[in-house]
């Protein structure tokens, strides 16, 4: 079965190609059979592979599909790699992916046949790209998947092409991601130059053999890779695209912008942990960006009223946690959070989709309320996932978040790489973010499901529970949110008995960086209780503010008392505006300058001879692309002059 590893990405690709080959002319039934069927087959194949792999004690299995680039000193194989890390990723990507495919049958059924087929074609294509990313045995194959998921994300965000802002959001996502890819690409080149290979195994071997030789290159490569991760995983300062990406259909938000694609950055950092662990600076940068993003996005989440936007900022914040973990050396802990987060965040998004579906497309929580009675399945699953996200035991998020905070604290207390104080600060930020997370999530729960309905009576009349194809995925994911945490129970919780299956499974490829003086068991217990207490405090505060008779009064007062702070938070700290000022408009001006100023204006005497120097300057610009041959000739003359001067002087 392991020889059929190539089937895993190939199956969804085949599905996508079949849908495209049908030129999108299939009816809904055929489309469903192909689109969901291929995802199901992929899941089955992965299950079979993982069952076999379970007995192999975490060996690394590499399969060369074909020799891909081979020219001179450049050789890159299209090779797939199955190891504990990619196995974990495979398991939840295919499972969550399949569940979301099923969910989409119900969610997208109102679309026309062609849009429906297009949607599933893109979704299958995404699965192909994501699985390629996960299974890639070298940086280039990973980059192919990396670009592929970006492209699919772009296509799916802009899915509703009749809505102008969707298309704009798609472009924004793509262009911002390119900035990240720029770093990734440079890292690939640099790694190639330094190691002579971009194969993960090859690079790891080279580094293990002679770490001193590569000491100078490790930090820049790690940082450049991290630039890529920042873009893909929506960290400061490149997070701006993710909230806008919520313009896409909700299953897309759940699959791509919560469970899988956005975690690719974390996966990449962990995949390259053999590079990161050699560079304390890069580790600290990763942790700092993650920690600051976690708290920053959480504060923005406090003031969002669009249910999907709340979840989007929550995703950004949780991704920050994952990087915080990786930066503190808890690579397995970071991946564990990726794993649990996939379940509860997908569940939350699908639940939000169900809510939106029930409210006839309404996304503003201010016009919801009291929905728990009418859509109980959605409510209860949403509740489970929320508790998991807030880190309430025994739900999944508790174990993973606790692991992260514990490890960061340990890194601080044990003075990891001499940056102990910094890690302690980051731990405090993480703890604060946990409080905020609990607060804004329960704010959303209260605003959506409790109290009185605040929409129109007509809307209320229409509210109905979603069909089975949508509720069953919710139930499955809710069950996952409740249970998967048990795979990685921290040693402190079991009083020192090592039941942390997850970490020992990953130990072979992503061992945790141990600090010299691990905190005492008692300290760990204090930390655990502290984080639970903080989460409970957040929940209670939200309850006080957003439920009962006094609902909304307190936050209203707060907004009145500190309007500037509230406005800043509600407007996402004006980051989009700042980008617009600092980047978009100057670029536009530059473009206009090179077009109008440099390229367009003909010499038509419009110039008034107000000042001699303006005239000369204007003329020089006009010479450039005036449509006038003589000016072009002058250009050539200037060029010749410059060339001759260059070589002679």
């Amino acid at each position: 079965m392991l020889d059929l590893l190539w089937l895993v990405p190939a199956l969804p690709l085949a599905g996508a190609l079949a849908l495209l080959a049908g030129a999108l002319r299939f009816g809904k039934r055929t489309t469903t059979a192909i689109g969901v069927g291929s995802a199901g087959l992929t899941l089955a194949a992965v299950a079979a592979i993982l069952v076999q792999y379970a007995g192999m004690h975490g060996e690394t299995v590499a399969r060369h599909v074909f020799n891909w680039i081979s020219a001179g000193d450049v050789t890159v194989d299209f090779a797939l790699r199955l190891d504990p890390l990619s196995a974990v990723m495979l398991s939840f990507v295919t499972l969550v992916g399949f569940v979301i495919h099923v969910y989409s049958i119900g969610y997208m059924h109102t679309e026309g046949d062609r849009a429906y087929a297009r949607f599933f074609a893109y979704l299958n294509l995404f699965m192909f790209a994501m699985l390629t990313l996960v299974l890639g045995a070298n940086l280039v194959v990973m980059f192919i998947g990396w670009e592929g998921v970006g492209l699919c994300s772009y296509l799916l965000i802009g899915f509703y092409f009749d809505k102008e802002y969707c298309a704009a959001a798609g472009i924004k996502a793509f262009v911002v991601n390119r900035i990240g890819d720029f770093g990734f690409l440079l890292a690939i080149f640099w790694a190639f130059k330094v190691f002579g290979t971009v194969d993960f195994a090859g690079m790891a071997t080279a580094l293990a053999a002679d770490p001193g030789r590569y000491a100078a290159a490790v930090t820049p490569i790690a940082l450049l890779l991290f630039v890529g991760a920042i873009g893909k995983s929506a960290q400061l300062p490149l997070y701006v695209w993710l909230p806008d990406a919520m313009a896409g259909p909700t299953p897309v938000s759940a699959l791509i912008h919560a469970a899988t694609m956005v975690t690719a950055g974390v996966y990449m950092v962990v995949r390259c942990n053999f590079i990161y662990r050699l560079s304390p600076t890069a580790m600290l940068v990763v942790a700092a960006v993650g920690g600051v993003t976690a708290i920053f996005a959480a504060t923005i989440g406090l003031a969002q009223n669009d249910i999907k936007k709340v979840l989007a900022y929550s995703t950004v914040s949780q991704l920050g946690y994952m990087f915080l973990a990786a930066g503190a050396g808890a690579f397995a802990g970071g991946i564990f959070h990726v794993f649990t987060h996939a379940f509860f965040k997908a569940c939350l998004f699908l639940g939000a989709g169900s809510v939106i579906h029930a409210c006839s497309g309404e996304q503003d929580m201010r016009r919801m309320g009291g929905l728990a009675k009418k859509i109980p399945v959605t409510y209860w699953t949403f509740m489970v996932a929320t508790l998991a996200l807030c880190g309430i035991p025994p739900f999944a998020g508790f174990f993973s978040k606790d692991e992260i905070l514990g490890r960061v604290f340990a890194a601080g207390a044990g003075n990891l790489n001499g940056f102990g104080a910094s890690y302690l600060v980051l731990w405090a930020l993480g703890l604060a973010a946990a409080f905020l997370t609990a607060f804004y999530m329960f704010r959303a729960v209260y605003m959506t499901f409790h109290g009185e309905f605040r929409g129109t009576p007509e809307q209320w009349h229409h509210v109905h529970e979603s069909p089975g194809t949508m509720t069953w995925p919710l139930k499955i994911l809710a069950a996952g949110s409740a249970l998967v945490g048990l795979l990685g129970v921290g040693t402190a919780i079991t009083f020192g008995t090592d039941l942390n299956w997850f970490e020992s499974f990953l130990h072979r490829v992503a061992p945790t960086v141990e600090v010299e003086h691990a905190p005492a068991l008692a300290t760990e217990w204090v930390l655990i209780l502290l984080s639970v207490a903080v989460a409970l405090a957040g929940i209670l505060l939200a309850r006080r503010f957003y439920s009962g008779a006094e609902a909304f009064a307190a936050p209203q007062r707060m907004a009145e008392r500190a309007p500037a702070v509230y406005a800043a938070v509600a407007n996402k700290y004006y980051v989009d505006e700042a980008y617009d000022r600092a980047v978009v408009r100057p670029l536009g001006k530059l473009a206009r300058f090179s077009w109008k100023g440099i390229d367009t204006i003909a010499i038509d005497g419009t110039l008034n001879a107000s000042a001699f120097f303006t005239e000369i300057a204007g003329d020089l610009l006009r010479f450039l692309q005036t449509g006038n041959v003589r000016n072009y000739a002058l250009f050539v003359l200037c060029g010749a002059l410059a060339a001759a001067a260059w070589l002679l002087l």
Partner: protein
Amino acid sequence: MRADLIALLPELMLATLAMAVLLAGLASGKARHGLLGAGAVLALAATGVTLWLAAGATDPGAHFFSGMFVLDHFAIFFKALFLLTAALVVLLSHDYLKRNDYRPGEYLALVMFATVGMMTMASGVNLAVIYVGLELMALSTYILAGYFRREVKSHEAAAKYFVLGAMSSGILLYGLSLIYGATGTLDLATLARVLASAKPGPSALVGVALLACGFLFKVAAVPFHVWTPDVYEGAPTPITAFMSVGPKAAAFAMFLRVFIGGLAPLAASWIWLVGVAAALTMIWGNVAALTQDNVKRMLAYSSIAHAGYALVGLVAGGPAGVNSVLFYMLVYTVTNIGAFGFVILLESRGYAGETVADYAGLARRHPAAAFGMLLFMLSLGGIPPTAGFMGKLYLFAAAVNAGYVWLVVVAVLMSAVSLYYYLRIVLQMYLREGDGAEPATLVAAPWTERVIWACGVAVLVIGLLPAPFLAAARAMAGAVGLL
């Protein structure tokens, strides 16, 4: 003499067949588009076969015609590429000439003569041969640019191209004369020997500078790119496609042969000149393309930018650099011809196909062709799994390995910028609906469509399985050098 003729056989054959096509065109009047087009394609195919046979029958290291002509792997690669380009352009032109009602005879013959000139440039190891090949190519292209004589823009393109082309080749020639004066030879191998043995004087440096100007003009690099947008916009679209790949690739062949080969001892002097030109070209081309609404013009600026990328490979030098340029030329050729093919499909009633807005909603009306265009745009933007990504990867890897990290930083940044304008077209096709009473539709042009299909498949195949193509590009860097 016999060996000489065998080595020259492909050029002789193509020139002869071009004359045959010319005469057939004169004899048959204007109506025989199919016949003449088929004849031209067959002639190019036959030349390809001849090339293959001639390559088998000659020693790649041997020199012919008093040491002026070689048929090494480098030359064979480029000649095959030129023949492919010419054949695709002939196919693209078929429907276009017919639709616009222009005589095919002279047109096809001129395309073939230009190809003869390009092939001569690729094989020449003597500056005299390279120069006459260059002029043959250039003069044919001037006429082709102005072939649509009822169009003002076509005339304008010819006039501008001619004036600036003549000026640049004059400058080039003056540089050549100074190099000849300083070294006493026009033979590239001797040139390299002479330059390596004695410290070259300033007159040789001035000569190299002026020569570089001429070459940079031919590849449309900043600041010698000024002619490109106007000429590309005005010329008949298949000819624009031709100019953007064929003569450009030929210019790169000559650039590599002369600069990496004959002028290698002076590399320290010219490498920075070319490097800075490459950086400026990438920046200028991409930034200026951002705001273009006319698609042909946008593609013109895009092709300027791509010349900049290829120059990065030239600066990198060495076998890896040269390979990467060769491979990039192949990638760029299939991609760009495909993209222009799509423009031709849309160019039906004078206005359509010109502005980006004409592309609105095309994916819905013409899913297959639009998908091809999507591939071409992604390939030009360098997104995997298309050929363009492989080309750039290989090119930039060569430059990083050669130590030109700053140049690669510029290149990668600029290719990120370039996505913005490539995606504008994709966005229009896929995400917008055509507004206005009469949305643009594609004209029926079976051969153009077939070319688009072929190019689309090539873009994917090269992107997914680049190994054999890289190997072909690499073959030349084995035992045989550039001289």
